[in-house]
């Protein structure tokens, strides 16, 4: 709607609306063509099956209930790790952004953990805590907290002191300050952390499952890797990508549009 009012030329107004999905479709089509060509060139379905050769195994896994079960296990781990990492990382980042003292103390830790390879943390968690769910989730959360903290710290540093002064003069309640002053200002940083968080977390969850769990997408990929079953590896990988695309499109983007409404107005 706003495009029409602000568009410099009338005929350009409706173009972006159509161009965006078209470009996306064309780009996805190009990827499919690339896959087809590669599959044709390899000529061996055990190395790289053509797209249609994956329909049957996918249907089989769905019908047997294996795919929903392992997908569910992975999603459950992703959800737990995501919530814990966002909450803990958010609190740590906020404290660091607001207090220089806390920042001086915790910044070296942040640098160390940001640069510690995910694999090292996973292996150490399994060695120290044991091959169990706690260790798996702890490993993912520890991997993600530093990123969330670093992003939220920037947001906490950028808070407007004038709005803060206004809130103090008018004695706004702590809850009002949190909901209507703090969170709206932190929203862009929280959504950035959530988006990059989700993308990183599910990859780490897969590694955690690969190394030390007996269910989940990562475990299935490990299993089929040992059986050299490329089709099944791809089936499980794609099933998760589809779920993540749905989360992005149905949850993250609508939420972001809502919190950004006042900027677009």
């Amino acid at each position, binding site marked *: 709607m706003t495009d029409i009012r602000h568009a410099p030329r009338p005929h350009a107004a409706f173009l972006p609306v159509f161009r965006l999905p078209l470009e996306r479709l064309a780009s996805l089509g190009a990827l499919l063509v690339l896959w087809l060509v590669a599959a044709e060139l390899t000529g061996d379905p055990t190395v790289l099956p053509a797209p249609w050769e994956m329909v049957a195994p996918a249907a089989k896994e769905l019908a047997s209930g294996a795919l929903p079960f392992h997908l569910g296990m992975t999603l459950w781990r992703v959800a737990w790790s995501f919530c814990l990492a966002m909450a803990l990382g958010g609190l740590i980042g906020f404290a660091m952004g607001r207090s220089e003292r806390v920042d001086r103390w915790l910044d070296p830790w942040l640098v160390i953990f940001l640069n510690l390879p995910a694999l090292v943390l996973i292996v150490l968690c399994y060695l120290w805590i044991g091959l169990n769910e706690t260790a798996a989730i702890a490993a993912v959360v520890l991997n993600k907290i530093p990123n969330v903290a670093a992003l939220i710290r920037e947001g906490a540093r950028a808070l407007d002191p*004038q*709005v803060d*002064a*206004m809130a*103090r*003069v*008018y*004695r*706004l*309640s702590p809850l*009002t300050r949190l909901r*209507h*002053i703090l969170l*709206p*200002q932190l929203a862009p940083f929280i959504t950035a952390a959530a988006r990059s968080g989700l993308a990183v977390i599910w990859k780490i969850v897969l590694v955690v499952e690969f190394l030390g769990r007996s269910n989940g997408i990562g475990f299935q990929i490990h299993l089929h890797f040992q059986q050299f079953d490329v089709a099944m590896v791809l089936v499980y990988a794609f099933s998760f990508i589809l779920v993540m695309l749905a989360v992005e499109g149905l949850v993250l983007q609508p939420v972001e549009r809502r*919190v950004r*409404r*006042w*900027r677009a*107005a």
Partner: protein
Amino acid sequence: MTAVHVQRKAFGSLEVLGDIRFTVAPGQTLAILGPSGVGKSTLLRIVAGLDPDFEGRVRRPERLAMVFQEPVLLPWRTCLQNLTLVHPDLTEAQAMDLLRRVGLEDKAGVFPGQLSLGQQRRLALARAFAGRPELLILDEPYVSLDEATAAEMLSLTRDLLREHAPATLLVTHSEAEARSLANRVMRLDGSPARLVEERPFRPREREALA
């Protein structure tokens, strides 16, 4: 009664405010004039309780309102919410009345970013009066407005002051603003700054200006 006694205020080794004493009675408007950078805003922050780091004592009433140099609205909430969130006791109907009073009745559902600077300042003024303040602090409330808008804001402020009669502290560098709103004018000057009483206006002069 608002009673301010600042003995000393310094930023590091830089002494900004010297010995400053004044009181403002309910219904009275005290204007403080002074060149920019003399410490007017520092004094206001002390009076408002935003800066507790000074030597001296400030007695201020319970209900406080402040109009800042910038409008300082919540850009992510609508105009109506900017009143009702800051003053939870305010009903929606009362908030609408206030918007009407400052000429923003058709802007209730609009975000502050869509308003002109003059409209934003009127909203900030409405927010200040919405809490029925006992002490109202105005920190250069008409700065960077064009002449016509500033004059309009000035007469709106004068009407609202007459209706609500809070103790008012106005800081400005404009002599005309001070004379049109205040019963009493003081001047902040020197380094560290001190207050000097200006000659009070004679009633005839006030009428002529009003």
